[in-house]
């Protein structure tokens, strides 16, 4: 029997594979330890079925554990009401998703992150948010099984509705805060910060936590090389911090580059969907909310 050898296997062409095999680069080593395959249901949520399991990932030196990410933006319930009261905040559901689910709006960046932290949640940083986007996309395309917090597989139809709510270019205007703040480095400190590239002297602060009532970043590091102008970006070019490294003309995602003292959020409207790193942290809007995520236990 004669076999017909394909020119491609799972997206890898024979030319690419041969080039890699004949180069001095190390070929991919196989997995030695068998992978745990069990999506164990979450135990730290009241309704795990309203959350999507985002598997932990490593990007360069940054890694995060398995997360449970809300299918909807954070709404108002007794826990949220109580957390807001403890923070001295008055909150209301002013936003509404396409399927009718209401969510908190009119909260600024600090209030949003504080409420999540008070609830024991985290707010997605840009890297996690981009990974979440990829997860949804793969789930919709059927190339990856996506599970809810109970360990049940989520249908592509349901994933599609989560995806469209965040990324679809349409009215109404809707947006959500992300956990990233940008600052320009004091000239005197520049030499002391590892990884800082001259001409791009920015820091990014993320993984914010409540510390004696104040919001403080757990991680502050040099901003990795990324697009530093406003415009359309290549959606396959995100760096370890979740910021794009290439521009593109395909008009699939817009990007507002990091600005000193500003924070990140994602927005979609009838004109475009985009990642904003230019937003004033004190800004609010009735349709600007926040998504809850939580470390999976």
């Amino acid at each position, binding site marked *: 029997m*004669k076999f017909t*050898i394909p020119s491609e296997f799972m997206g890898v062409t*024979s030319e690419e594979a041969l080039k890699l*095999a004949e180069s001095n680069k190390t070929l*991919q080593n*196989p997995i030695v330890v068998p992978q745990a395959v*069990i999506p164990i249901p979450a135990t730290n949520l009241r309704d795990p079925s309203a959350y999507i399991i985002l598997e932990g990932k490593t990007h360069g030196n940054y890694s995060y554990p398995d997360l449970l990410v809300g299918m909807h933006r954070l709404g108002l319930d007794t826990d949220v009401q109580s957390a807001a009261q403890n923070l001295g905040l008055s909150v209301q559901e002013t936003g509404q998703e396409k399927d009718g689910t209401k969510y908190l709006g009119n909260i600024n960046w600090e209030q949003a992150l504080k409420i999540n932290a008070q609830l024991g949640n985290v707010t997605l940083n840009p890297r996690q948010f981009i990974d979440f986007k990829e997860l949804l996309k793969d789930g919709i*395309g*059927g190339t990856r099984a996506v599970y809810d917090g109970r360990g049940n597989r989520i249908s592509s139809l349901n994933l599609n509705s989560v995806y469209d709510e965040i990324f679809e270019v349409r009215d109404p205007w809707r947006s959500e805060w992300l956990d990233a703040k940008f600052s320009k480095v004091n000239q005197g400190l520049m030499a002391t910060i590892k990884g800082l590239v001259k001409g791009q002297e920015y820091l990014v602060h993320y993984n914010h936590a409540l510390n004696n009532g104040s919001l403080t970043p757990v991680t502050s590091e040099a901003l990795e090389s990324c697009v530093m102008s406003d415009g359309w970006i290549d959606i396959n070019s995100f760096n370890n911090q979740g910021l794009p490294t290439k521009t593109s003309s395909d008009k699939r995602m817009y990007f507002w580059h990091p600005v000193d003292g500003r924070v990140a959020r994602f927005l979609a409207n009838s004109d475009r969907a985009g990642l904003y790193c230019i937003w004033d942290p004190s800004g609010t809007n009735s349709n600007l909310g926040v998504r809850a995520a939580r470390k999976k236990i």
Partner: protein
Amino acid sequence: MKQGTYKNSTELMNLHGQSVYMPDIVEACLRGRLNLFLQGDTGSGKTQLMRDAMAEFGDKGLFILGRNDMDTRELFQQVNLEKLRTGKSSSEIRELTDKIDHHFIGVDELPNCVPAVRAQLFNLFDGFIEINGKAYQIGKGYSVGIATGNLGQKFTESANDLGRALKDRMHVTVDTDYFAPTAGDTLEILAGNTNPRVEFSDSEKDNSQEMLEKHRNLVGTEVPLQKLLITNYLLHGLDYCSKGSKRKMKESWPTQLANNEQGSDVGLVLPVSPRAAKSVIRLSQALDDIVSEKGASADAVKRGYFDSMMQAYKFVAAYSGVLNDSAVEANYDGDKYKALDAVITTTRTQFDQQKENIMAALAYASKGKMSDKVMSKFTGRWGFMKDTVDRIIKSGGQ
């Protein structure tokens, strides 16, 4: 399969960007000539689905209601072979069986049948009938069976004769309870008709020749080597464990596995049997055909061979006896599909890790060579690749 009475918009899978529903998997089984067992609780729609499938075959379809008081004599009467009971010669029997041209056998409530009847029914599904120890072909080259039943827990009991028989003779099993119609579907069903009985679709047209043609095209199409490699992983890669071979461990699998293997796919699933492996390929090919007709591009189908193989694997393997039932019960609430989704996730990771090495090995093989550097990457569960690539080279593959 044309739209029948059965309604269910619950998605079984999304393949190459196209939704696949219950009637689609039934159609895939018919095209692939794979016997299908529809397991499910009363009212899950399995009988209606089977009746809709039968309607495709017009008068070439045969419906049998399984009863525990049915004997082989009655079964033979149903297939117009009652004359066989009077002791004919082989040539006379052949003359009689040649006249039977049922392409489709639908058996409702198969578990009700006694073992002797069941065995003959399985033979009918496979296109022959056994008389006096001899097999006589029926169905003129194409026959397939769909059976329904509600076995519940009994299905997986290894001591259960019926469970074993089903695993041996049915190629695909779908538990309809896991893919029940949505509330919207039931609303539509109730609004349309309040007749609680199964609707017998009128066989206005006999589409069996069309189905036979699709089947012939399917089996006449060369199976891509990518799919054969994936199948070899299901046969050999999933057999690997620290003790060497899960199959050779026999009853000591999975309890005697190393600790780190217990919580992984090594302790969760056995390799598929060669027979199941063929069913996986056949079902995957049929699913690819169906989603192509729904609009998937040829390129998407080609790029997604792994996905169609994994979906086919899920539906062939779930009730084939390869899963560690106690692990499924403990970690997946007894949901075999969920357990196989987890196995598929790990399999995908394994292939993602090895895809460059696999392609490199194949590229060298096309030149009649085997690269030590590349082949050194195939260790552990990937050990089967050496013999596989060697065989491809010897075949003069290019």
